[in-house]
Structures are given as C-alpha cells and as structure tokens.
C-alpha cells in the first residue's frame, strides 16, 4: 500500500485513534486527554496540508476496500472533499480549544471528547468518501457519534432533543439507504465521478432515477435541515455549546449540504439532473427553507434557537447554489459552505461564551453585554454582519455570487428570495447587536461564573477561538480574490464540474 | 397325536381366556374381577404355552415357552395382591348380594 493510499486513512486515524484512547482514559487524566486532543487536531492539520499540497501538485489519493462482492468502501481526496476537510480540520482545532475551556470541571469529559473525535472522524469520512456507499457509512456513523453529545447533559430536555434528533436522522438514513441501494442496483456501483454516473443509463430509467433522486435528497436533506425536515435542529440546541458550534455549524448540517453537492454533481451530473428537471424543485425547496428559517428565527428569544433557525436558512443557500444551473451559482453555493461555517461557528462560540460566563441564554437578557464582554460581542457582531451580507465580510462574497448565479440561470425570483432573506437576517440580528452595544447592562448578571478580572472578560480558551474565526470572516471577505481564498477554490471545483470553464 | 393334543390345548386355553374376559365383564367388583384375571387368564396362558411347547423345535425352546408361565404367574400374584391390598386399604368395600334377594 503506497503513501497515496495511506494518507486518507491517516487523516481518518488522526482523530479516530485519539478518540478511542480517550474513551479508555480515566476521567481525572486531564493533561493526557488534552494533549491527545490537541495532538490529534494538529496532526490532522499537517496531514491535510500534505494532502492539499499533493492534490495541488496533481497527485491522486485514494484507498479502496471491498466489504461485499461489488461493494467497496472507497476514499479519495479531491478538491471538493478537501474544501470540506480543510474547513473541518481547522475548525476542529479551534473547537477543541474552546471545548477544553468550556467543559472545564464538567463530568464525563472522556466520553465527550471521545465522541467528539469520532464525529470529526465521521466528517472526514464523509468528505473523503469516494462513492455514495462510503458516504452513507460515515453519514450514519456521524448520526451515532453525535447522539451521545446531544444527550450529554442527561437532562430530560437533552433526552428529548436527542430522541427527536435520532428519529429524524435515522429515518433520513433509512430513506437515503433505500435510494442508494436502488441506485446501486440500477447502475451497479455508486462511484462519485465527474459528470455523474446516472447519465449512462438509458432514458427508460428516467422515472426511477427521479424517485431515487427524491429519496437521496430527502435522506441527506434531513441533516441539511431542509424544510420540512429541519425539526430536529432547534431541539438539538440543548447540547453543550462546542457541540452546537462544530456540529451544527460544520459537521452535521454541512454533511447534508455536502451530500447534496455530491449527489447533484458527481452522482447525477448537473447537466443530467437539469435534463431530468430535478434542479428546479430543489431550488424551490431551498428557497422555501431560506425564507421559512429566517422567519422562524425572527421569533426566537432563546439565542441558540435563533441561531439554529438561522442555520436552517443559511445552509439552504448551499443547496440553492447547487440548484442554480450554471457555474456561478455553483461557486456561490460552494463558497458558502465554507463561509457559513466560519460565520456560524463564531456565533455559536459567542453564544456559548455568554451562557458560560454570565449565564445568558436569551436574546432579551443580552442588554449591555457589549460593555461587559466587548471582544466576544465584537466577534459576534462581525459574524452577524457577515450573515446579513454586509460588505467586506465573507457573507457578502457568497451572496454576491449567488445573485449572479441566479441571474445567469435566469431565475430572477431567486434574487428576490435572497434579498428577502438578507432583510430578515438583518431583522433578527440587528436587534441583538443594538441591545448588546447600546442598552444599559442590568445590575447583576443572571449567573456569573467567570468574574471579570482586569481586561480579561472570560477564560482565554473561550475567547481566542471566536476572535480567530471572526477574523477569518473578514479575511475571507476582503481577500476573496486571492489565490488561496475559499472563493478561488470554489472556482476551481466549479471549473471541473462544468466542462467549459469560465 | 402331539399335533392334536397341542391344538386341543390351544383351544382350551382360548376357552379359559374367554372365561376370564367374561368374568371381567360380569363380575361386580374389583376383587372378583381380580379373581377372574388371576385364575382364568393364567390358566389360559398356561394351556396355550403348553400347547405351543409341545410342537416346539427343541427342548430348550419348549422350556423357554414354559418359562414364561411362572413369570406371568408371579407377576399376576404380585399385582393382584398389591391391587387388592391397596383397594382394601383405601376402603373399597366388596360387593355384597342384597340380603332380601336370598
């Protein structure tokens, strides 16, 4: 087995092995656990870097293992996968740092970090899946590994949230499985390939392929939280903040969105999907989700719930970008995969900081928090502005490309949707910012566990990650034209998907 | 001659068996029925065995047939005694003719 086969496996192992070891560690071995966590995250970053360099140099990375005759676990590292891998690997490092600070002194930390690492492993698997079967394997693993994190606190609310989460995702998994087996039966394999694999079938299969598409999208749509399959997401917000941050900004919902991308581009092939008339319904579903999520977010007082509905809305941008036939929309969707990730994780980090430092959970309690926690609130503001699509932020870039894409695809109504969404974004974020910066603080905070000492507003492990990611939001927006920006990357991918590069 | 004797014994044996069955059918209580079985049937068996032994191939075979009889007798004696004793212990009264019929 060559280096080219080992590297993808090593990327998986760099979080799997520490995770398994952490499970076995006694609760009190904090130092070793922390070291393992960070070591895993750093090693993974290095490995991802190697992969990036290799792929950029035109190397092919892949690994295959047959589990049944005609059925293989396949891994490959391509540009699209690497986009997702890099995002996850980087954010994992920050989230780990954040989680170490957040969970200081909490019970069952070995269990928490163990499953946390498993989640990352599953996410890596999803990103590197070389066929739909492998994608599904890790997709289900992700469900299983996140469940213990959702119910981590063991309270009745956590139990309820976990149950709802499982009900949605397992049912979605079953539907997805049905679609995959069907596809496997029709095509004989489920490889991800440029231009898709379904197009090879004759026109007499069009009907079946439409049903399969519906099954597949419904399956991944659960995790991507497409309306009406989004019901689990707000309820899963009972999880600890790092979980909400990583999983509901990056891993889980992105896994769904990423699945939609893979299915449309590499299973059906965007041209073939368009010819079957599948993209338009997808666009409609995404549009409905965008508007509905934003509307619901407007009426949430619970901060994390408001963020969760915002996620519902924002993740659908990706699906929307994919559904806009044409390279520009694609670029918008793909770049939003990254941009939404860094923006939303910043927001969740900040929400976690408010809750952990001052016991603030509700929007209505945030009055004047900007004075008590200026750095956190600054990061929150940047990310929120990004979400609205304010200039110089990452959000502006993705929205701009999406609007262009819609115009190019001659779907002007989408532009309306995007503008409506932006307005609604503003409507649910601006009051928070206003309240945080300009309203007077209360006499006493509800539950202040970390006292302000000098210039330090909270534990530095909680503060650094949101600041870094907030900075990233700005950098991604300002340097969007650079060679190494997510945008450039998305262009590269789109160029490969559409035979005629722009 | 032996042939005829043997056949005769078989028929007599059958007759005793018949009598035993008749007794079983007609006798009024368990004790009397035990009489019928223990005596008539055993005698019937004895006759049949003797009849067959007469025509047996060898002396040993004949003795083997005759050997069955004491075994059956012992079994009958033991079982009828056991049943009668148990019946009596459980207080089953023997049937008695109604006095006025005499």
């Amino acid at each position, binding site marked *: 087995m060559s280096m080219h086969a080992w590297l993808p496996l090593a990327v998986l192992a760099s979080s799997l092995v520490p995770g398994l070891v952490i499970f076995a560690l006694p609760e009190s071995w904090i130092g070793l656990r922390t070291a393992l966590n960070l070591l895993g995250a750093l090693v993974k970053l290095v490995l991802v870097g190697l992969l990036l360099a290799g792929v950029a140099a035109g190397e092919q990375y892949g690994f295959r293992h047959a589990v049944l005759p005609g059925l293989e676990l396949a891994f490959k590292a391509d540009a699209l996968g690497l986009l997702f891998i890099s995002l996850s690997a980087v954010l994992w490092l920050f989230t780990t740092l954040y989680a170490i600070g957040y969970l200081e002194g909490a019970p069952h930390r070995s269990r928490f970090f163990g499953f946390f690492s498993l989640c990352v492993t599953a996410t890596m698997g999803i990103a590197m899946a070389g066929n739909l079967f492998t994608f599904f*394997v890790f997709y289900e693993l992700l469900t299983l590994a996140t469940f213990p994190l959702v*119910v981590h606190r*063991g309270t009745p609310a956590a139990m309820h949230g976990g149950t709802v989460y499982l009900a949605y995702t397992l049912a979605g998994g079953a539907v997805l499985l049905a679609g995959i087996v069907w596809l*496997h*039966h029709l095509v004989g394999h489920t490889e991800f390939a440029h231009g898709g694999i379904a197009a090879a079938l004759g026109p007499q299969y069009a009907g079946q392929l439409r049903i399969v598409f519906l099954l597949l999208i419904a399956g991944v749509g659960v995790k991507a939280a497409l309306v009406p399959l989004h019901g689990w997401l707000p309820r899963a917000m009972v999880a600890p903040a790092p979980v909400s941050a990583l999983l509901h900004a990056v891993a889980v919902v992105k896994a769904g969105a990423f699945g939609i991308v893979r299915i449309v581009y590499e299973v059906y092939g965007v041209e073939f999907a368009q010819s079957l008339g599948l993209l338009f319904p997808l666009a409609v579903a995404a549009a409905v989700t965008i508007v509905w999520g934003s509307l619901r977010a407007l009426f949430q007082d619970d901060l994390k719930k408001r963020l969760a509905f915002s996620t519902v809305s924002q993740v659908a941008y990706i699906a929307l970008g994919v559904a806009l036939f044409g390279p520009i929309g694609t670029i918008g969707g793909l770049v939003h995969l990254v941009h939404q990730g860094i923006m939303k994780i910043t927001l969740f980090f900040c929400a976690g900081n408010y809750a952990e430092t001052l016991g603030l959970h509700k929007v209505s309690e945030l009055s004047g928090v900007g004075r008590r926690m200026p750095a956190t609130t600054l990061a929150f503001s940047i990310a929120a502005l990004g979400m609205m699509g304010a200039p110089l932020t990452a959000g502006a870039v993705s929205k701009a490309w999406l609007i262009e894409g819609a115009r190019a695809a001659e779907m002007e109504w989408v532009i309306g949707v995007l503008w409506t969404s932006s307005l609604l974004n503003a409507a649910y974020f601006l009051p928070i910012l206003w309240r945080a910066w300009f309203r007077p603080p209360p006499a006493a905070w509800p539950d202040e566990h970390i006292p302000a000492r000098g210039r330090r507003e909270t534990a530095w492990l909680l503060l650094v990650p949101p600041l870094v990611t907030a900075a990233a939001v700005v950098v991604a927006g300002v340097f969007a034209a650079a060679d190494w920006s997510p945008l450039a990357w998305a262009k590269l991918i789109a160029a490969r998907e559409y035979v005629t590069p722009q | 001659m032996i042939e005829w004797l043997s056949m005769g014994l078989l028929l007599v044996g059958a007759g005793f068996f018949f009598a035993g069955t008749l007794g079983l059918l007609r006798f009024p209580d368990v004790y009397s029925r035990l009489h019928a079985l223990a005596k008539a049937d055993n005698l019937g068996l004895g006759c049949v065995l003797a009849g067959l032994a007469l025509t047996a191939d060898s002396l040993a075979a004949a003795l083997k047939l005759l050997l069955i009889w004491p075994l059956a007798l012992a079994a009958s004696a033991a079982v009828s005694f056991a049943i009668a004793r148990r019946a009596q212990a459980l207080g089953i009264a023997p049937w008695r003719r109604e006095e006025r019929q005499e």
Partner: protein
Amino acid sequence: MADPLVGLVLLPLGWATLAFVLGPGRGAWAALAGIAAQAWLAWLLAAQVGAGGTARHAVGGWGAPLGIDLAADGLSAALLLLTQWLALGVALYARSYFAAGDPARRYFWPLAGFLLAGLNALFVANDLFNLYVTLELVGLAAVGLVAAAGGERQIAAALRYLFAALAGSGLYLFGVALVYGVYGTVSIATLAPLITPEAPRLVWIAGGLMALGLVVKSALFPFHFWLPPAHGGAPAPVSALLSALVVKASFYLLLRLWLGPFAPLAPAAAWLPALLGAAAIFWGSWRAIRAERLKPLIAWSTVAQLGYLFLIFPLLAVPAAFGAGVMQVFAHALAKAALFAAAGVFIQATGQDTVAGLAGAAARLPVTLFAIGLAGMTLAGLPPSAGFLAKWQLIEAALALGHWPIAVVALAGGLMAAVYVFRVLRQAFCLAPAGAPVAAVPRALEWTAFALAAASVLLGFFGVDLMTLIEVRA
C-alpha cells in the same frame, strides 16, 4: 484429530462427558481447552473448504445411502466457524459469570458441551435422520440449560420450550418418515436428484411438515411464543448461546433443505415464510419496544431479527439473498450474544433486570455500554456493521427482483430496531439516581461482551471473505 469435520463433533462430546465426570470447577477448564481446540479446528476446516471445496467424511466407510455421510460446504464451514468462536467468547464469559454456588452452574459445562456437539453435528450432517437426532440433541440440551437456572419462571419457560421443540422435531421426523417411505433413503445427497416437481403428493406433504417443524423450532411468528420466556429467563450465558446459535441451527437446516433436495418444490411456498417473517419483525420489534425488562426486550428482539432470515426465501433466485441470510445469521449471533452478555453484566451489577434500572449503572460500566451500543448498531443495521451488510444485500436482492415491499419491511424493521436499541442507550445516558448501588463486576464479563459486539461490527469489513467462503456449495 485428523479430520476437522469429525473432530468438531467428537471433541465437544468428549469434553462434555469429561466435564460431567469432573464436576463444575475442573470441568470448566476441560471445556475451555476443548472449545479452543474446536475453534482452531473450525479455522482449519474453513481454510480447507475455502481451498479445496466441500469436505466429506463417510462414517464407517460405508457411504450413503447405506451409511451416514458427513459433509461441510462453505455454509457449514462458516457456521461452524461462527459457532466455535462465539462459544469461545461465551465460555470465557460463563466461567466468570457463574458464582461458585450457583445451581445453574452445576451442569452448565456438560450441557453446553453436548449443545455444541449437537450444533456441530447438525452443521455437518448430510442425512435427514441423522439431522433429526442432532435436532433433538440441540433441543434437549437447550431446554436443560434453560431449566438449570431453577426458578419457577425458568422451569415454566423450559417446559414450554420443550414442548415446542418436541412438536417441531416430531413434525420433522414425520416428514422424514414419509420421505423414507417414498424414496427409500434419507441421505440428502442421494435424495437431491430424485426429487422433482412431479414428485408424489406425499413428498410435498413431507416437505411441508418438515418445514413447519423447523419453523416452529426457529421461532418464526406465530410460533415464537416459547422463545421470549425461555431466552429472557435463562442465565445470561445460556441466553447468549440460545439466541445466537440454537435458533439459527433450525434455520440453517431449513435453508439447507430448501436450497438442496427440496429446491424443486420450494418456489411454491416461498412467500409464506417471508410474510410470517415480516409479521415477526413488526410484532417482535413492537414487543421489544414495549418491554419493561432488559432480557425479555433482547429476547423479543431475537423474534424480530429472526424475521429477517425468513424474508430471503422469495429472493433466493438472486445470490445476494443467500448472502443476506448468512450475513444476518452472523450479525445477529454475535450481536445478540453480546447483548445478553452485557445484560448479564447489568444484572450482576444492579441486581435487577429492568430497562429503567440502567440509568445509574451505565455511566459506571462504560465498556458494557459500548458493547450494547455496538451490538445495537448491528441489530438496527447501521453501517458499517455486519447487520448493515445483511440489510444491504437483502434490499438489493429485493429490488433486483422487483419485490420492493420486502425492502420496505427491512428498512422499517431497522428503524424499529433502532427505537428499542436507543431506548436502552438513552436510559444509559440519563442522570443516575442518587445512591443506586452498583456491585463490582468481573472485568472478563465486560470485555467478552465488548469483544463479541466489536466482532459483530468489524465483521462488516470482512463481508467479502465470508461471501467467498459460502460460495463453496455442495
């Protein structure tokens, strides 16, 4: 042993006898040594079959139809392998499980030995009447193991089980009698070319009765009534053996006859077992979801999981269906043994058998909890477990033949399994009630349960090897 085929039958008979003579303490060592040797023999046999095709042995040197032939094709070799290795795990578990004074321990080893001998003999038998004897061997040993626990519930369950087993084997024997009457032989190899679709009516009756008997013994709905009390009431190692192996034995036999000598008649009835299997999945899962106590929950889950095995009958035209059946046998055997083993750990730790009682214990027994989780993955058919591969093949076979309702049943059954599995897991994550006492449990118990569960998941990566082995057909 020169011939692994024979050694696998003689060895357990030998050590079971020895274990009886030696008594429970030293008997355990005889048993462990014997099972380890069997595991090695099974491995040899699998290698031999994989390389050289079906292994045969003519007992007494006569050859069928006068004598009895033993034969192991890929399916037999695979099941033998499963049986020995699983038994090794359960034996290690049982050695730590039974306390010195436990009445269930007195005759556990000899009975388990005879049970294994019966199973092995069943898997290598190639003669209908010999199969009857092995069925009785397995049935009576299983009943004895259930009854040995000695409580009123267990005895009642054992009695119910015994009658079901006897009715089943009686039906089978009657079928064998008819077959002998029609063809004058009971050797499967000799019979196979003789039975045609134009066979006399009696052969159809015989086949039906044998199938019915085997279905009763493998607890297919609605003949499952005996299973939950028996498997739910027995001591954990016994439940593990019974649920994992014993019910599979009669299914194996059914499959063997269905694909072998009775193949010309089989298509006529293919949908009946599938319908009953679907009913079993729904009813068993439903009862498992509703169960209050842990071991009955697992036992009802067995009822449901056995249902999958019978879904394959209308699909056997596609090779994937056969693979699905075997894979499900493996997956369920390992997972169910792990679950019962884990349940035994909880019972020893908390002294109670309720699902609610898990709330406190699970946090303190993480290895066992993991075992339940992994085994649960297999039962619910979640990837990358062996149960998932079974489900995959089943659905694929169903779609290939256009029988999509079977695929729907398989998917729905998986979801229902997930419901009862996560009902248990969820309880484990609940906050522990204060002060619930948790007794210390031997490490060996936890880790054997975990090893079995891990095996059920890891097997999901080695499906190709298993499928290659069972390709070797007589």
